[in-house]
């Protein structure tokens, strides 16, 4: 371990660190869910993140996504890769500025043992879950559904069937023209990341 990593992880649980450093996690989408989840996973010490998103950073993203004013106009995956490197250079980031499709999903995320679904559009969520579960039925996917609005902490839950988890309240849809709000989308993103870390630590099946 390099000097900075040794300092970064001083006092950290060595068993957890080992499990997380050896892990490869995919994140499909780098908006409110994906950018928040990526930061939590890089800070925890995940060894490799694969992140895909075709969009560029815009000013209105800054209300809830982990980007900065000087990153406006950059591809989200490039901006996020830079931010993650500034936090933890030992997390290797593969960045794909691409739209994920049933055709390229395997070539982008094939090396990930867990996939975090962080898309905005419900149809894209459905496509990702169907394709991943058909290709890799034994590998976990942690999706989000029902993140809109403010408050309603008590409604947020985790549903599971086999290797599929869905986090959210299952009722609060983002309406056209109404954007998600910082705190609630970050709560769900961090629940996705928390569940991912728990699975990798062997503490949940």
């Amino acid at each position: 371990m390099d000097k900075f990593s040794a300092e970064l992880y001083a006092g950290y649980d060595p068993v957890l660190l080992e499990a997380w450093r050896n892990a490869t996690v995919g994140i499909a989408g780098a908006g409110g869910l994906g950018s928040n989840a990526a930061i939590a996973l890089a800070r925890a010490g995940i060894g490799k993140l694969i992140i895909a998103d075709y969009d560029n950073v815009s000013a209105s993203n800054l209300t809830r996504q982990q980007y900065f004013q000087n990153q406006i106009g950059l591809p989200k995956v490039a901006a996020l890769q830079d931010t993650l490197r500034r936090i933890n250079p030992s997390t290797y980031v593969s960045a794909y500025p691409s739209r994920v499709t049933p055709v390229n999903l395997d070539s982008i995320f094939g090396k990930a043992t867990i996939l975090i679904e962080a898309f905005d559009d419900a149809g894209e969520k459905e496509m990702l879950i169907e394709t991943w579960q058909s290709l890799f039925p034994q590998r976990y996917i942690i999706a989000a559904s029902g993140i809109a609005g403010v408050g309603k902490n008590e409604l947020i839950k985790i549903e599971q069937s086999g290797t599929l988890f869905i986090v959210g309240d299952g009722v609060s849809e983002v309406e056209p023209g109404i954007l998600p709000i910082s705190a609630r989308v970050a709560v769900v993103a961090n629940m996705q990341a928390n569940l991912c870390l728990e699975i990798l630590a062997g503490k949940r099946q």
Partner: protein
Amino acid sequence: MAQITVNGQQLEWEEGMTVNRVLEKMNYSWRLLVIKVNGTLIKKEAWNESKVPPGAEVSVFHLLSGG
């Protein structure tokens, strides 16, 4: 009488019951769904033919935009 479980609720099983028939019986009208039968994902194009066995555990997840 054979039963199946759909999102924790009991439903009477029928001979030749398909995934689409289960959705109809449950009155689910959600637009975007992911469906698992006994832990295995059933793709949307197979809902009309895929049979649900007696005693099956069916999970229907409703997908909502926002991310």
